[in-house]
């Protein structure tokens, strides 16, 4: 439903970007009174969601929405164009922001963290730039807000301010900035000087007149330049970013930021090179193999991690490569699978992070090896964890199954056996590093010696993770909306 | 014949330069430099550049040498052996020199009357300037009128030099009791001579100032000469007395005034509807306009140069007296 009937479509975009931004300012203004501040955050989040809903409506009705802001270079402008994929992403992000805000309140207070105003300010600001990325109408705009997002999240990563945080921040900024400046910007300027445009065109901007080798080079530059997609070997920033408070890891480094990365790759694949264009490039296969390798290697690393958040981080790295792989399959099924995975992985992974945070706040445990028997103390939490894990592995009745299904289809109908094997392999690996946790949680005895007295986490923490877990199931049983958007994305492209 | 003199002088120059390279006694080095610039002044004469020769003699051999000696008095007169190898400089110099020699190889031959520079711009100066500007001394007309803007820049350069020296050294006024030991009070002969010479020098300065339109000379040389007169005075009678005659503050104002006078002429010609420094509009008849303009700006140059040179000397002098070197 669209609560914003009154407004012209283009104004909705302005709102989508401005609402969180204004929210950020209000947060900064009300910093003195925590309750008011949190209230502002929540209201902002809800408002934003309604706005995005409105945009979704219009998009599903097929109303094109676009908005031109200003020419930065002659003929090159900051401009926004709404298209289905962006809507899907925006929808997920804005919905999860509401949930995360609730969670964050509980978490930040539960661990009485410092600088909470700065935290919520930067958080809202990051969301605002995420919205801008979702609706960006050309590569320049995308790049601009991609960088803004990097800088906006930096203070969140270094929130703790201790050496570990500083070190993490260095890696984070170092990798994200250098990849984006050296490769992404290079690729963008390259594209511009070849094609003379940075528009997102259905079917891509390149044509047969362009040198395939150079196009291949550009594709590789794009894939590695979009460091937020955490394609190996440029994935190190993501585990490093885990020093941040859990809500950040949950929303930004499981959903918003990393999805901004893969989203950009999908957009480049579909709207700059075009599915058909991709299929003609040998470089596509190269990137696909990189993605496959990332899936497997990252899963193996995850297996070795005892720190829960670290394990989740590496699992994220692996899962992101699903989407890259989906894009590089250069088939409709693959692209749909990729798009779907943006949504499905989001719900699953955020649940897992919420759980990790819940355990940390209540039981003060970070390590997998400490979780024996925790299922008895926190049954609901661990139930949610189980659902999330199933979704990661890709079994029914969790959302992850759907996207993985499409990916598999895509891989099969182009006969990409490497992709098929990688998918299967990583599924097994996922199982290998999630099942033990669940097993330990429910069937092992608590370590003798210390006796925890805690039960479930406080409601503001518990409720959000239950909601996301529920969503994970819901999307499996009723995936129409995301599917519709994903399909629409490809319909507009011939 | 002229070539022969030329050659001899150049040879002497070369010897002097070589000597300077190897000498360690800075006093001798500076003296040789004085000689060097005198010799080059002679060359300038033999090459028909009388004005330049005049200036070179008064500045290079005069002011510069004096200032260098003043510095030596404060910094000691022998150069220490320097360890670091002189190979790299040698290479640089050889390369640069080679480049220059290469460059000379298709220069227009020395002294040929049909060289491009005698064909293109200069002819107008030579043929027209006496009519357009009305001065027999073409150098002055080019200097003050055709390229008057350069000369204004030159005046400003001198002015900036003064600013630099003042900000670096400043001029310290001293109490009377200190003044006793400064100067050369005990040499009676010097006093008498100085008293005789100084008025003549100033008179000569004025002559050079105003005769510049007709013969060699002009504001710059005049200013230097006048400054020389006061320098002599303060050497003999000591800085405090000199300060009493022309105080550093007055000199500051004079220096500034000279520049303003010069630029002022330009502004007036703008107000009178001409371009900046267009003297034609200064009077009903262009020629006399040119005349007024040139006289005034030459005066401006003279005043500034005089003031600057003298205050620079003051600055060094008061330093010397500060670290009482006898």
């Amino acid at each position: 439903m669209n609560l914003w009937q009154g407004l012209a479509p283009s104004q909705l975009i302005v709102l989508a970007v401005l609402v969180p931004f204004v929210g950020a300012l209000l947060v900064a203004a009300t910093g003195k009174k925590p309750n008011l501040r949190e209230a502002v955050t929540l209201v902002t989040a809800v408002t934003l969601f309604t706005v995005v809903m409105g945009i979704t409506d219009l998009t599903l009705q097929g109303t094109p929405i676009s908005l031109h802001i200003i020419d930065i270079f002659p003929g090159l402008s900051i401009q926004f164009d709404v298209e289905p994929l962006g809507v899907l992403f925006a929808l997920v992000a804005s919905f999860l922001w509401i949930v995360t805000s609730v969670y964050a309140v509980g978490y930040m207070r539960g661990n009485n963290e410092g600088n909470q105003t700065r935290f919520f300010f930067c958080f809202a600001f990051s969301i605002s730039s995420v919205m801008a990325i979702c609706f960006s109408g050309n590569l320049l705009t995308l790049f601009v807000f991609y960088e803004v997002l990097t800088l906006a999240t930096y203070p969140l990563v270094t929130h703790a301010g201790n050496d570990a945080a500083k070190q993490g921040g260095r890696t984070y900024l170092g990798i994200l900035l250098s990849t984006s400046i050296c490769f992404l910007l290079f690729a963008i300027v390259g594209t511009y000087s070849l094609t003379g445009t940075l528009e997102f065109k259905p079917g891509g901007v390149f044509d047969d007149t362009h040198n395939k080798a150079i196009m291949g080079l550009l594709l590789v530059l794009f894939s590695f330049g979009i460091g937020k997609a955490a394609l190996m070997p440029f994935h190190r920033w993501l585990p490093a970013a885990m020093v941040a408070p859990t809500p950040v890891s949950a929303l930004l480094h499981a959903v918003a930021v990393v999805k901004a990365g893969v989203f950009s790759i999908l957009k480049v694949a579909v709207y700059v090179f075009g599915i058909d264009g991709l299929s003609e490039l040998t470089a596509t296969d190269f990137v696909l193999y990189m993605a496959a390798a990332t899936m497997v290697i990252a899963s193996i690393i995850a297996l070795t991690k005892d720190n829960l958040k670290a394990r989740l981080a590496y699992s994220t790295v692996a899962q992101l490569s699903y989407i890259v792989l989906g894009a590089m399959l250069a088939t409709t099924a693959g692209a749909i699978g990729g798009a779907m995975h943006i949504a499905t992985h989001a719900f699953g992974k955020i649940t897992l992070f919420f759980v990790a945070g819940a355990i940390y706040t209540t039981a003060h445990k970070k390590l997998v090896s400490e979780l024996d028997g925790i299922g008895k103390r926190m049954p609901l939490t661990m139930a949610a964890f189980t659902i999330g894990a199933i979704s990661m592995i890709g079994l029914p009745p969790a959302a992850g199954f759907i996207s993985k299904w499409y990916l598999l289809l895509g891989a099969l109908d182009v006969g990409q056996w490497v992709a098929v094997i990688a998918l299967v392999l990583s599924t097994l690996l996922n199982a290998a590093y999630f099942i033990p946790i669940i097993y330990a949680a429910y069937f092992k005895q608590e370590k003798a010696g210390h006796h925890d007295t805690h039960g479930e986490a406080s409601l503001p923490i518990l409720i959000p993770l239950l909601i996301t877990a529920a969503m994970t199931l819901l999307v499996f049983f009723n995936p129409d909306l995301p599917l519709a958007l994903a399909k629409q994305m490809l319909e507009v492209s011939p | 014949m002229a070539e022969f003199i030329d050659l001899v002088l150049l040879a002497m120059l070369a010897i002097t330069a070589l000597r300077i390279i190897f000498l360690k006694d800075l006093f001798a080095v500076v003296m040789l430099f004085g000689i060097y610039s005198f010799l080059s002044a002679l060359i300038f004469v033999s090459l028909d550049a009388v004005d330049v020769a005049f200036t070179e003699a008064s500045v290079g051999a005069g002011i510069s040498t004096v200032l260098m000696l003043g510095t030596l008095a404060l910094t000691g007169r022998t150069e220490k052996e320097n360890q670091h190898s002189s190979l790299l400089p040698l290479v640089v110099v050889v390369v640069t020199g080679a480049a220059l020699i290469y460059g000379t190889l298709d220069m227009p031959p020395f002294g040929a009357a049909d060289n491009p520079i005698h064909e293109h711009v200069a002819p107008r100066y030579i043929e027209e300037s006496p009519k357009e500007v009305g001065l027999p001394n073409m150098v002055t007309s080019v200097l003050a009128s055709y390229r008057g803007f350069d000369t204004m820049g030159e005046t400003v350069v001198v002015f900036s030099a003064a600013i630099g020296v003042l900000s670096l050294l400043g001029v310290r006024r001293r109490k009377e009791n200190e003044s006793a030991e400064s100067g050369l009070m005990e040499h009676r002969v010097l006093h008498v001579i100085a008293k005789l010479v100084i008025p003549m020098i100033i008179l000569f300065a004025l002559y050079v100032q105003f005769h510049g339109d007709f013969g060699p000379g002009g504001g710059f040389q005049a200013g230097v000469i006048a400054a020389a007169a006061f320098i002599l005075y303060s050497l003999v009678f000591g800085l405090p007395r000199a300060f009493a005659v022309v105080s550093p503050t007055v000199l500051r104002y004079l220096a500034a005034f000279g520049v303003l006078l010069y630029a002022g002429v330009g502004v007036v010609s703008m107000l009178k509807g001409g371009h900046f420094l267009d003297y034609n509009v200064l009077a009903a008849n262009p020629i006399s306009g040119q005349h007024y303009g040139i006289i005034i700006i030459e005066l401006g140059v003279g005043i500034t140069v005089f003031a600057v040179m003298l205050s620079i000397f003051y600055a060094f002098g008061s330093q010397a007296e500060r670290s009482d070197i006898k």
Partner: protein
Amino acid sequence: MNHVLDYYNYWIVVFLMMSGFYIVISANNLVKKIVGLNIFQTSVFMLYISMGKVSGGTAPIVVEGVTQYSNPLPHVLILTAIVVGVATTAVGLSLIVRIKRAYGTVEENEFENKDDAI
């Protein structure tokens, strides 16, 4: 031989320039550097004046019955250049005086190692 007659003047001037230049970059004593700078510049002045010369010409001051004048323009330029030269010299020397007072020496290598680099 003809070449030599045409250019001997320039060649010697180049030699003079370079000896001045050499003093500037090789000398370790600041005063000597400044002397070198002056020699360098004075020699450049000679280059200019030499090109202004017209054999058989006279100084560019109108005299009855003289038709062949040397070129006044280089003279003007060099007049300006000389002034610029002395201005620089003055500033350079007063810098030396201050350096002597601050460091107690005017030998480049000596005051270099009195301060940490830069």
